[in-house]
């Protein structure tokens, strides 16, 4: 059964140096506040996993939390590049960043395998691309019935997965709706999970398109209203498109970024 705790308690207890950590949320419901808490707690040597490392991972990489990134698309959606991510890859600043690079389909299937208790998933993908030559976690597999050649990718089983959702009830059952991405799979694939929510309510009135994660499948729930900003929580907030554009300027320069980090996160 999920415990309802503060975000600081959840991160302190459940995210350790060296962990493989997945923060998921596909444009919608990105757990940004939790990412900032991981920065504040000074976690290091993390293997960060995320299909779409965007602003929050740019921040965590720039803050020096990450040793490795497992991902499929690292950009500032609708704006351009991630400058802290680029600086880490191109100049090893603030630290070298190892990459394990997949496609969205590959990452999604790796989470599915992880959630399913399987060591790998089968897909049609990567064929003819240069990705298998740089990513060792892409291998061929042969159908035992037809002899057809397909692609296998290994399960992702993060030590801890962090997501943001609209609501939880007091028993720790979690409810989200709108674009639900790969969050269910990421939580079920993980050893531990933290869910920040817009609000904890007495009842979870059913909502069309909802995904419910039962309390017994979640480790910790923390109420963090606005915890997805500048991303959004459908029914609670809108995407702050201006912030995404502003991030381009903040992140382009190391000093500007470090000022932002001090003032906006660490202060």
């Amino acid at each position: 059964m999920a415990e309802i705790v503060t975000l600081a308690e959840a991160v302190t207890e459940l995210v350790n140096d060296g962990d493989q950590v997945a923060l998921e949320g596909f444009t919608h419901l990105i757990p940004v506040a939790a990412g900032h808490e991981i920065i504040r707690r000074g976690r290091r040597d993390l293997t960060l996993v995320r299909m779409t490392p965007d602003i929050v991972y740019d921040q965590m990489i720039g803050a020096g939390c990450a040793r490795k990134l497992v991902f499929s698309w690292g950009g500032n959606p609708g704006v351009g590049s991630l400058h802290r991510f680029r600086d880490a890859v191109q100049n090893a600043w603030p630290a070298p960043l190892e990459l394990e690079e997949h496609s969205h389909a590959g990452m999604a299937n790796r989470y599915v395998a992880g959630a399913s208790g399987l060591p790998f998933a089968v897909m049609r993908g990567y064929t003819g691309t240069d990705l298998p030559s740089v990513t060792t976690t892409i291998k061929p597999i042969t159908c035992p019935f037809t002899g057809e050649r397909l692609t296998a990718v290994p399960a992702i089983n993060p030590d801890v997965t962090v997501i943001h959702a609209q609501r939880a009830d007091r028993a720790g059952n979690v409810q989200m709706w709108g674009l639900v991405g790969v969050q269910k799979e990421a939580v079920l694939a993980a050893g531990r999970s933290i869910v920040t929510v817009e609000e904890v309510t007495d009842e979870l009135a059913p909502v069309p398109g909802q995904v419910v994660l039962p309390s017994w499948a979640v480790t910790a729930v923390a109420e963090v209203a606005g915890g997805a900003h500048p991303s959004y929580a459908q029914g609670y907030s809108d995407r702050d498109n201006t912030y995404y554009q502003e991030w381009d300027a903040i992140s382009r320069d190391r000093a500007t970024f470090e000022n932002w980090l001090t003032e906006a996160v660490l202060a």
Partner: protein
Amino acid sequence: MTGTSVETSGHAAHTASEMMSVAAARALRDGTSCFVGIGLPSTAANLARRGHAPNLTLIYESGALGAKPDSLPLSIGDGILAETADAVVGVPEVFNYWLQPGRIDVGFLSAAQLDRFGNINTTVIGGDYANPRVRLPGAGGAPEIAASCREVFIVVKQSRRSFVDKVDFVTSVGHGSGAGDRARLGLPGAGPTMVITDLGVFRPDPGTAELVLEQVHPGVTVQQVREATGWELAVASEVGTTTAPTAGELTALRALTGGPDGNDG
């Protein structure tokens, strides 16, 4: 041909970027389904749905099937997509149940680099993979969109930097090293059948699968296109000229993007 002017009789003045979006939108047939990549393709697809293709089904990798946004989504995961979709599904489902089996008619992609066989690079430019000169965002949904859709349209701003003889990294396969390569690789879709740039329109040669210039936009010369191409460009025996954007197309496009310099999606 009127040199570099983009004002043609009976049509409003437009930018090269607007011509590209309009030409890309026109490529989409009504009643088909389109898997919409991030960036320029989203602008074009939404423009098509506002114009000649009201029954175009837009599929976004964020899980929105049949999205009908009334404003241009700034990202492929905007709330307007889920709110207006026929169905919203998880990301694994959109790739496994909807894209992978080849249900989608057109995959609409952009590129940082594109080569003569329509292969796409969105990973690294220059140096090598471990020490690139420029680190790009990476693959996203593109490799499997390029593999599995029945055909692929690519929209890209053309220059010698983006139109190269051979991409530095094959992120998504077009026609590989030439005709027959997709079949040899077992890729189910037909691959890129049209490339739309701010200068013209290209289609693969049926014999070689190499991109051939078939159409220039109003005010663009074949020589200009050659100069913006990083290989010895093949040109069709009869090069057509794209019909300039109509006033209606431009109005719809500017309503979507917020003006000639608006967001590209």
